[in-house]
């Protein structure tokens, strides 16, 4: 009989412990920097080398490009089918120019399947946020990082620490 009371003691003791529930839509889980969420795509950087489409284990990336007058390839369409994308990060790994990256965004629920077929615009918008172009977004990010580093230095913490 003694073991039962020990167990009762454990559960009673838990009453006063800190609760771990996260009030999800209001409070969001703080995803670390490396989190492999929905992609962002930066057409300015893409050289249409097709490596991402080739490495993709589920063949969810399709892209097409044309050759410019200066003999450079320019991306025309870039689609990721998030119905089958498994967010394995291999496309990001092989991209030589970091044109495709992953964001900490993870919410992709939708009412229809076709909404999960994301095109270049959408993936670019994922990267741009409120900024007009890639340059502006990068500048804003650099500024944010500098600010972060300054704040961290002021607090005596090494920059680039855990998130």
């Amino acid at each position, binding site marked *: 009989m003694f073991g*039962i009371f020990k*167990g*009762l003691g*454990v*559960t*009673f003791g*838990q*009453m006063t*412990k*800190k*609760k*771990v*529930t996260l*009030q999800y839509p209001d409070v969001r889980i703080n995803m670390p920097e490396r989190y492999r969420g929905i992609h962002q795509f930066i057409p300015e950087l893409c050289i249409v080398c097709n490596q991402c489409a080739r490495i993709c284990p589920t063949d969810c990336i399709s892209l097409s490009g044309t050759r410019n007058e200066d003999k450079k390839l320019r991306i025309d369409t870039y689609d990721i089918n998030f119905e089958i994308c498994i967010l394995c990060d291999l496309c990001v790994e092989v991209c030589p120019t970091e044109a495709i990256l992953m964001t900490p965004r993870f919410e992709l629920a939708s009412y229809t399947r076709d909404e999960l077929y994301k095109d270049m615009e959408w993936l670019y918008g994922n990267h741009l946020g409120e900024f007009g172009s890639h340059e502006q977004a990068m500048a804003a990010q650099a500024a944010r990082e500098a600010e972060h580093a300054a704040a961290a230095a002021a607090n005596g913490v090494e920059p680039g620490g855990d998130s």
Partner: protein
Amino acid sequence: MFSWQATPLRPLTLLGMLIGVVVVLALVLGIVTYLIYFERKVIGWMQGRIGPNRVGPLGLLQSVADVLKLLIKEDIIPANADRALFLLAPVIAFVPSFMVLAVIPYTASHIFTANLNVGLLYYIALSSLTILGIVMAGWASNNKYSLLGGMRSAAQMISYEIPLGLSVLGVVMLAGSLNLVTIVQHQATDRFGWYIIPQIIGFVVFMIAALAELNRTPFDLPEAESELVAGYFTEYSGFRFAFFMLSEYVYVFAISALATTLFLGGWAGPFLPSWLWFAIKTSAIIFFLFWVRATMPRMRGDQLMSFAWKVLIPVALFNVVLTGALSLIG
């Protein structure tokens, strides 16, 4: 003290009775609503969660929302079910649970409840009726899981009726009455105080048997989710399902109220009003039931049976003998 039996039936008293019934029903529905809320909160706290917190302030309207949802859900009657029995079962399960509340003395002047001189007997007799509803539900659903659940339920509840009845015998012997009001009054004057002290064995047996009667963890075999999906109410939906849930929680309240009455001195207590004392004591027992639910795994059928017949009944019988001997000496 006001008693229905002593009062002749006149239109006015009939009206009074009806009002009493409605008030108790409303009260009980309110209690059950917050019982469920309380259970979810307590178990949540014990598991590092915060429990319901979205509907209404602090989630207070969660149970109301649940009931509303059940009300507007489609009422499904399986094609192969025994239709008449299927429809009847929830009613048979629910009505006795509500009827037993008639004899519980909630306050010192228990204006809405019957001062029945066989109150305890009435309670135990009526509460057994629920088994019928459950077995009926298990049979009528024409579902194998339901059938197993109904079977288990019948075996379990019949087995545990006996220790439950035996365990309260000691109290009856001490008080010399089956009237719950008299039992409470006796406890105020008894030299040991509340009967939980002289009847501690009876109290333990009563609590265990009560848990089994309620089909609650660790005796929740009839609805064992991990084995039988939902046991006897697997096929029920909507408001019929709500009836089963309702009767289960009314019984939680009723059995706690009975335990309070029999062992914890009922409404008696200093300073505070009597109904508040009753509420506090009942809540404590209800909390205990929830606490056990948060801790225990489920027992197995055969162990459950042998526990009832080989441990609880002998212990309860021993308690009866002991009480008799003590009363002879004392």
